[in-house]
Protein backbone atom coordinates (compact mmCIF):
# COMPACT_ATOMS: atom_id res chain seq x y z
CA UNK A 1 0.00 0.00 0.00
CA UNK A 2 2.79 2.40 0.93
CA UNK A 3 4.66 1.64 -2.31
CA UNK A 4 1.55 2.31 -4.38
CA UNK A 5 1.01 5.62 -2.60
CA UNK A 6 4.63 6.72 -3.12
CA UNK A 7 4.43 5.97 -6.86
CA UNK A 8 1.13 7.83 -7.11
CA UNK A 9 2.57 10.83 -5.28
CA UNK A 10 5.68 10.91 -7.50
CA UNK A 11 3.60 10.75 -10.69
CA UNK A 12 1.19 13.43 -9.48
CA UNK A 13 4.07 15.61 -8.26
CA UNK A 14 5.76 15.51 -11.68
CA UNK A 15 2.36 16.12 -13.28
CA UNK A 16 1.72 19.21 -11.17
CA UNK A 17 5.14 20.65 -11.97
CA UNK A 18 4.89 19.98 -15.70
CA UNK A 19 1.23 20.72 -16.37
CA UNK A 20 0.69 23.72 -14.11
CA UNK A 21 4.19 25.11 -14.47
CA UNK A 22 4.41 25.21 -10.69
CA UNK A 23 7.78 25.97 -9.17
CA UNK A 24 8.71 24.07 -6.05
CA UNK A 25 10.04 26.63 -3.60
CA UNK A 26 10.71 24.43 -0.61
CA UNK A 27 11.52 20.92 -1.91
CA UNK A 28 12.17 19.34 1.49
CA UNK A 29 8.68 20.29 2.66
CA UNK A 30 7.14 18.47 -0.30
CA UNK A 31 9.25 15.35 0.24
CA UNK A 32 8.62 15.28 3.98
CA UNK A 33 4.89 15.76 3.54
CA UNK A 34 4.82 12.89 1.02
CA UNK A 35 6.67 10.54 3.31
CA UNK A 36 4.66 11.44 6.41
CA UNK A 37 1.37 11.45 4.54
CA UNK A 38 2.11 8.03 3.10
CA UNK A 39 2.95 6.61 6.50
CA UNK A 40 -0.24 8.08 7.98
CA UNK A 41 -2.53 6.81 5.22
CA UNK A 42 -0.87 3.39 5.15
CA UNK A 43 -1.07 2.98 8.94
CA UNK A 44 -4.73 3.93 9.26
CA UNK A 45 -5.66 2.14 6.04
CA UNK A 46 -4.02 -1.09 7.17
CA UNK A 47 -5.71 -0.89 10.57
CA UNK A 48 -9.18 -0.40 9.13
CA UNK A 49 -8.52 -2.89 6.36
CA UNK A 50 -7.66 -5.54 8.92
CA UNK A 51 -10.61 -4.58 11.07
CA UNK A 52 -13.16 -4.79 8.29
CA UNK A 53 -11.75 -7.99 6.78
CA UNK A 54 -14.55 -10.51 6.49
CA UNK A 55 -17.32 -7.97 6.87
CA UNK A 56 -20.08 -8.46 4.34
CA UNK A 57 -20.77 -4.72 4.05
CA UNK A 58 -17.08 -3.88 3.84
CA UNK A 59 -17.26 -1.87 0.60
CA UNK A 60 -19.84 0.49 2.08
CA UNK A 61 -18.50 0.75 5.58
CA UNK A 62 -14.75 1.01 4.98
CA UNK A 63 -14.77 4.43 3.22
CA UNK A 64 -17.20 5.76 5.82
CA UNK A 65 -14.86 4.77 8.63
CA UNK A 66 -11.60 5.50 6.84
CA UNK A 67 -12.21 8.93 5.30
CA UNK A 68 -12.81 10.89 8.54
CA UNK A 69 -9.88 9.26 10.29
CA UNK A 70 -7.63 10.08 7.35
CA UNK A 71 -8.99 13.63 7.01
CA UNK A 72 -6.27 15.23 9.18
CA UNK A 73 -3.58 13.59 7.02
CA UNK A 74 -5.17 14.75 3.79
CA UNK A 75 -5.66 18.29 5.12
CA UNK A 76 -2.14 18.55 6.50
CA UNK A 77 -0.65 17.11 3.30
CA UNK A 78 -2.55 19.63 1.17
CA UNK A 79 -1.49 22.54 3.35
CA UNK A 80 2.16 21.46 3.36
CA UNK A 81 2.18 21.14 -0.41
CA UNK A 82 0.68 24.58 -0.61
CA UNK A 83 3.44 25.93 1.60
CA UNK A 84 6.09 24.01 -0.31
CA UNK A 85 4.92 25.30 -3.69
CA UNK A 86 4.34 28.91 -2.72
CA UNK A 87 7.47 29.23 -0.60
CA UNK A 88 7.94 32.43 1.39
CA UNK A 89 5.43 31.33 3.98
CA UNK A 90 7.23 28.05 4.60
CA UNK A 91 6.78 28.52 8.34
CA UNK A 92 3.05 28.33 7.67
CA UNK A 93 3.47 24.60 7.15
CA UNK A 94 4.95 24.03 10.59
CA UNK A 95 1.81 23.35 12.66
CA UNK A 96 0.65 20.97 9.95
CA UNK A 97 4.01 19.27 9.95
CA UNK A 98 3.67 18.80 13.70
CA UNK A 99 0.18 17.39 13.24
CA UNK A 100 1.42 14.87 10.67
CA UNK A 101 4.31 13.75 12.86
CA UNK A 102 2.04 13.29 15.90
CA UNK A 103 -0.64 11.55 13.83
CA UNK A 104 1.88 9.13 12.28
CA UNK A 105 3.54 8.36 15.60
CA UNK A 106 0.22 7.69 17.30
CA UNK A 107 -1.30 5.51 14.61
CA UNK A 108 1.85 3.54 13.86
CA UNK A 109 2.29 2.83 17.58
CA UNK A 110 -1.40 1.93 17.90
CA UNK A 111 -1.09 -0.29 14.84
CA UNK A 112 1.87 -2.18 16.24
CA UNK A 113 0.03 -2.77 19.52
CA UNK A 114 -3.41 -3.74 18.25
CA UNK A 115 -2.71 -5.46 14.93
CA UNK A 116 -2.23 -8.83 16.63
CA UNK A 117 -5.49 -8.71 18.61
CA UNK A 118 -7.39 -7.55 15.50
CA UNK A 119 -6.09 -10.52 13.54
CA UNK A 120 -7.19 -12.85 16.31
CA UNK A 121 -10.73 -11.55 16.30
CA UNK A 122 -11.13 -11.49 12.52
Amino acid at each position, binding site marked *: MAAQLIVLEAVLGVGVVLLYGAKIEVPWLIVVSCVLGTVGLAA*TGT*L*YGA*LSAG*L*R*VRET*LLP*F*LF*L*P*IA*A*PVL*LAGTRMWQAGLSGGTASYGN*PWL*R*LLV*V*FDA*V*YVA*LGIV*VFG*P*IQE*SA
Partner: protein
Amino acid sequence: MSPNPSVSAPPVQSSRARWTTRVIGITAVVATALTVWLGLWVTPPDQVQGNLVRLVYIHPGVAWVALYLAFGLAAVSSLLYLWPRTRSLFWDRLAAASVEVGVVFNICTLISGSIWGKPTWGVWWAWDARLTSTAVLLVLFLGYLALRRVPAEPEVRAKRSAFVALFAAVDIPIVHFSVLWWKTLHQGATVLNANLSPTIHGSMAWTLLLGFLALTLVFVWMLLVRFRIGVLEDWLGTGELDVALRERQAEGAPIDEDEAA
Protein backbone atom coordinates in the same frame (compact mmCIF):
# COMPACT_ATOMS: atom_id res chain seq x y z
CA MET B 1 -44.74 -10.74 18.86
CA SER B 2 -46.95 -13.34 20.53
CA PRO B 3 -46.43 -13.80 24.24
CA ASN B 4 -44.14 -16.67 24.88
CA PRO B 5 -44.15 -18.15 28.37
CA SER B 6 -40.87 -20.00 27.97
CA VAL B 7 -38.83 -16.84 27.33
CA SER B 8 -37.19 -15.73 30.55
CA ALA B 9 -38.49 -12.63 32.32
CA PRO B 10 -36.67 -9.34 31.61
CA PRO B 11 -33.57 -8.76 33.72
CA VAL B 12 -34.72 -6.95 36.84
CA GLN B 13 -33.18 -3.67 37.81
CA SER B 14 -32.43 -3.34 41.50
CA SER B 15 -34.54 -0.79 43.35
CA ARG B 16 -31.38 1.10 44.27
CA ALA B 17 -30.41 1.47 40.63
CA ARG B 18 -33.93 2.63 39.81
CA TRP B 19 -33.83 5.19 42.58
CA THR B 20 -30.38 6.45 41.62
CA THR B 21 -31.53 6.98 38.04
CA ARG B 22 -34.63 8.82 39.24
CA VAL B 23 -32.74 11.06 41.66
CA ILE B 24 -30.13 11.95 39.04
CA GLY B 25 -32.90 12.70 36.54
CA ILE B 26 -34.73 15.02 38.92
CA THR B 27 -31.51 16.77 39.98
CA ALA B 28 -30.63 17.25 36.30
CA VAL B 29 -34.01 18.89 35.62
CA VAL B 30 -33.68 21.19 38.64
CA ALA B 31 -30.09 22.16 37.78
CA THR B 32 -31.03 22.83 34.16
CA ALA B 33 -33.99 24.99 35.20
CA LEU B 34 -31.73 26.91 37.57
CA THR B 35 -29.14 27.43 34.83
CA VAL B 36 -31.82 28.74 32.47
CA TRP B 37 -33.12 31.14 35.14
CA LEU B 38 -29.64 32.40 36.11
CA GLY B 39 -28.46 32.52 32.51
CA LEU B 40 -31.43 34.38 31.07
CA TRP B 41 -32.54 36.65 33.91
CA VAL B 42 -30.04 37.01 36.73
CA THR B 43 -26.65 37.42 35.03
CA PRO B 44 -25.85 40.74 33.35
CA PRO B 45 -25.31 41.08 29.59
CA ASP B 46 -21.67 41.11 28.50
CA GLN B 47 -19.85 44.37 27.81
CA VAL B 48 -18.77 43.29 24.34
CA GLN B 49 -21.20 40.59 23.29
CA GLY B 50 -24.36 41.85 25.00
CA ASN B 51 -27.03 39.19 25.39
CA LEU B 52 -25.18 36.81 23.07
CA VAL B 53 -22.88 35.95 25.95
CA ARG B 54 -25.71 33.90 27.46
CA LEU B 55 -24.81 31.12 25.06
CA VAL B 56 -21.65 30.65 27.12
CA TYR B 57 -23.75 28.90 29.76
CA ILE B 58 -24.78 26.21 27.27
CA HIS B 59 -22.28 25.77 24.46
CA PRO B 60 -19.04 24.95 26.37
CA GLY B 61 -20.97 22.68 28.72
CA VAL B 62 -22.50 20.72 25.86
CA ALA B 63 -19.11 20.50 24.16
CA TRP B 64 -17.49 19.33 27.41
CA VAL B 65 -20.02 16.53 27.77
CA ALA B 66 -19.77 15.43 24.14
CA LEU B 67 -16.08 15.66 23.43
CA TYR B 68 -14.51 14.81 26.75
CA LEU B 69 -17.02 13.05 28.98
CA ALA B 70 -18.97 10.93 26.48
CA PHE B 71 -16.25 10.06 24.00
CA GLY B 72 -13.65 9.84 26.76
CA LEU B 73 -15.83 7.40 28.66
CA ALA B 74 -16.41 5.44 25.46
CA ALA B 75 -12.65 5.22 24.89
CA VAL B 76 -11.92 4.13 28.46
CA SER B 77 -14.65 1.50 28.52
CA SER B 78 -13.57 0.21 25.10
CA LEU B 79 -10.05 -0.11 26.44
CA LEU B 80 -11.34 -1.95 29.50
CA TYR B 81 -13.28 -4.29 27.21
CA LEU B 82 -10.18 -5.06 25.17
CA TRP B 83 -8.09 -5.63 28.28
CA PRO B 84 -8.41 -9.41 28.80
CA ARG B 85 -8.76 -9.20 32.59
CA THR B 86 -11.64 -6.76 32.55
CA ARG B 87 -13.40 -8.15 29.47
CA SER B 88 -17.12 -8.02 29.98
CA LEU B 89 -20.09 -7.02 27.84
CA PHE B 90 -20.81 -4.43 30.54
CA TRP B 91 -18.02 -2.24 29.15
CA ASP B 92 -19.21 -2.77 25.60
CA ARG B 93 -22.73 -1.66 26.49
CA LEU B 94 -21.39 1.31 28.43
CA ALA B 95 -19.26 2.39 25.46
CA ALA B 96 -22.19 2.02 23.06
CA ALA B 97 -24.54 4.01 25.29
CA SER B 98 -21.89 6.65 25.85
CA VAL B 99 -21.21 7.09 22.13
CA GLU B 100 -24.89 7.32 21.31
CA VAL B 101 -25.53 10.04 23.90
CA GLY B 102 -22.23 11.69 22.93
CA VAL B 103 -23.28 11.92 19.29
CA VAL B 104 -26.44 13.76 20.34
CA PHE B 105 -24.39 16.18 22.43
CA ASN B 106 -21.87 16.56 19.61
CA ILE B 107 -24.66 17.59 17.24
CA CYS B 108 -25.92 20.05 19.89
CA THR B 109 -22.39 21.46 20.17
CA LEU B 110 -22.26 22.11 16.45
CA ILE B 111 -25.75 23.63 16.40
CA SER B 112 -25.25 25.91 19.42
CA GLY B 113 -21.82 26.92 18.14
CA SER B 114 -23.33 27.72 14.78
CA ILE B 115 -26.04 29.87 16.37
CA TRP B 116 -23.31 31.73 18.22
CA GLY B 117 -21.08 31.99 15.18
CA LYS B 118 -23.60 33.76 12.97
CA PRO B 119 -23.96 36.97 15.02
CA THR B 120 -20.38 37.11 16.35
CA TRP B 121 -18.29 35.92 13.39
CA GLY B 122 -20.87 36.69 10.73
CA VAL B 123 -20.98 33.11 9.41
CA TRP B 124 -22.91 29.99 10.36
CA TRP B 125 -19.95 27.79 9.61
CA ALA B 126 -16.24 28.23 8.95
CA TRP B 127 -13.68 25.60 8.06
CA ASP B 128 -11.84 26.46 11.21
CA ALA B 129 -9.55 23.87 12.79
CA ARG B 130 -11.70 23.30 15.85
CA LEU B 131 -15.01 23.29 14.01
CA THR B 132 -13.67 20.92 11.37
CA SER B 133 -12.14 18.52 13.86
CA THR B 134 -15.37 18.49 15.89
CA ALA B 135 -17.34 17.67 12.75
CA VAL B 136 -14.83 14.96 11.87
CA LEU B 137 -15.26 13.53 15.36
CA LEU B 138 -19.02 13.37 14.80
CA VAL B 139 -18.59 11.44 11.54
CA LEU B 140 -16.09 9.11 13.22
CA PHE B 141 -18.53 8.16 15.95
CA LEU B 142 -21.42 7.91 13.50
CA GLY B 143 -19.20 5.35 11.79
CA TYR B 144 -18.90 3.57 15.12
CA LEU B 145 -22.69 3.43 15.43
CA ALA B 146 -22.98 2.19 11.84
CA LEU B 147 -20.48 -0.56 12.57
CA ARG B 148 -22.52 -1.64 15.58
CA ARG B 149 -25.53 -2.12 13.31
CA VAL B 150 -23.68 -4.76 11.30
CA PRO B 151 -25.10 -8.09 12.43
CA ALA B 152 -22.50 -10.16 14.28
CA GLU B 153 -21.99 -12.21 17.39
CA PRO B 154 -22.07 -9.92 20.47
CA GLU B 155 -18.41 -10.68 21.30
CA VAL B 156 -17.19 -10.05 17.74
CA ARG B 157 -19.20 -6.86 17.52
CA ALA B 158 -17.94 -5.67 20.90
CA LYS B 159 -14.31 -6.22 19.98
CA ARG B 160 -14.62 -4.62 16.57
CA SER B 161 -16.46 -1.59 17.96
CA ALA B 162 -13.97 -1.19 20.78
CA PHE B 163 -11.10 -0.90 18.28
CA VAL B 164 -12.96 1.71 16.23
CA ALA B 165 -13.80 3.72 19.36
CA LEU B 166 -10.12 3.73 20.32
CA PHE B 167 -8.98 4.89 16.88
CA ALA B 168 -11.59 7.64 16.89
CA ALA B 169 -10.72 8.75 20.43
CA VAL B 170 -7.24 9.74 19.24
CA ASP B 171 -8.96 12.66 17.54
CA ILE B 172 -10.12 14.12 20.89
CA PRO B 173 -6.74 15.57 21.97
CA ILE B 174 -6.30 16.92 18.45
CA VAL B 175 -9.59 18.81 18.88
CA HIS B 176 -8.52 20.16 22.25
CA PHE B 177 -5.11 21.33 21.11
CA SER B 178 -6.26 22.54 17.71
CA VAL B 179 -7.18 25.87 19.30
CA LEU B 180 -3.65 26.26 20.61
CA TRP B 181 -1.78 24.95 17.56
CA TRP B 182 -3.65 26.98 14.99
CA LYS B 183 -4.59 30.50 15.91
CA THR B 184 -8.04 30.38 14.45
CA LEU B 185 -11.49 31.92 14.60
CA HIS B 186 -12.59 29.86 17.57
CA GLN B 187 -11.44 31.30 20.87
CA GLY B 188 -9.08 29.51 23.22
CA ALA B 189 -10.12 27.65 26.34
CA THR B 190 -11.82 29.87 28.89
CA VAL B 191 -11.94 27.55 31.86
CA LEU B 192 -9.41 24.78 31.26
CA ASN B 193 -6.61 27.02 30.03
CA ALA B 194 -2.92 26.48 30.60
CA ASN B 195 -2.76 28.58 33.78
CA LEU B 196 -5.95 27.06 35.18
CA SER B 197 -7.20 30.55 35.89
CA PRO B 198 -10.66 31.06 34.40
CA THR B 199 -11.00 34.32 32.48
CA ILE B 200 -14.56 34.86 33.64
CA HIS B 201 -15.88 36.24 36.92
CA GLY B 202 -18.67 36.59 39.44
CA SER B 203 -22.22 35.43 38.82
CA MET B 204 -21.33 34.55 35.25
CA ALA B 205 -18.65 32.11 36.40
CA TRP B 206 -21.06 30.46 38.83
CA THR B 207 -23.75 30.13 36.20
CA LEU B 208 -21.23 28.68 33.79
CA LEU B 209 -20.17 26.16 36.43
CA LEU B 210 -23.78 25.26 37.18
CA GLY B 211 -24.40 24.82 33.46
CA PHE B 212 -21.52 22.33 33.28
CA LEU B 213 -22.93 20.46 36.26
CA ALA B 214 -26.48 20.43 34.88
CA LEU B 215 -25.41 19.13 31.48
CA THR B 216 -23.17 16.51 33.09
CA LEU B 217 -26.15 15.30 35.13
CA VAL B 218 -28.33 15.21 32.00
CA PHE B 219 -25.62 13.14 30.32
CA VAL B 220 -25.36 10.71 33.25
CA TRP B 221 -29.13 10.27 33.33
CA MET B 222 -29.36 9.66 29.59
CA LEU B 223 -26.43 7.25 29.84
CA LEU B 224 -28.09 5.22 32.60
CA VAL B 225 -31.38 5.02 30.71
CA ARG B 226 -29.66 4.10 27.44
CA PHE B 227 -27.61 1.45 29.21
CA ARG B 228 -30.76 -0.06 30.62
CA ILE B 229 -32.34 -0.06 27.14
CA GLY B 230 -29.20 -1.82 25.88
CA VAL B 231 -29.61 -4.55 28.50
CA LEU B 232 -33.27 -5.00 27.57
CA GLU B 233 -32.43 -5.01 23.84
CA ASP B 234 -29.94 -7.82 24.35
CA TRP B 235 -32.48 -9.74 26.39
CA LEU B 236 -35.10 -9.22 23.67
CA GLY B 237 -32.59 -10.28 21.03
CA THR B 238 -31.93 -13.64 22.65
CA GLY B 239 -35.66 -14.02 23.34
CA GLU B 240 -36.53 -13.41 19.70
CA LEU B 241 -33.94 -15.92 18.61
CA ASP B 242 -35.44 -18.57 20.88
CA VAL B 243 -38.92 -17.88 19.53
CA ALA B 244 -37.71 -18.02 15.91
CA LEU B 245 -35.90 -21.30 16.54
CA ARG B 246 -38.95 -22.85 18.14
CA GLU B 247 -41.18 -21.69 15.30
CA ARG B 248 -38.83 -23.26 12.81
CA GLN B 249 -38.82 -26.51 14.70
CA ALA B 250 -42.61 -26.44 14.91
CA GLU B 251 -42.84 -25.82 11.14
CA GLY B 252 -40.28 -28.47 10.35
CA ALA B 253 -41.94 -31.33 12.17
CA PRO B 254 -45.24 -31.74 10.21
CA ILE B 255 -43.51 -31.26 6.83
CA ASP B 256 -41.18 -34.14 7.61
CA GLU B 257 -44.17 -36.31 8.45
CA ASP B 258 -45.89 -35.40 5.15
CA GLU B 259 -42.79 -36.27 3.19
CA ALA B 260 -42.50 -39.54 5.00
CA ALA B 261 -46.15 -40.32 4.18
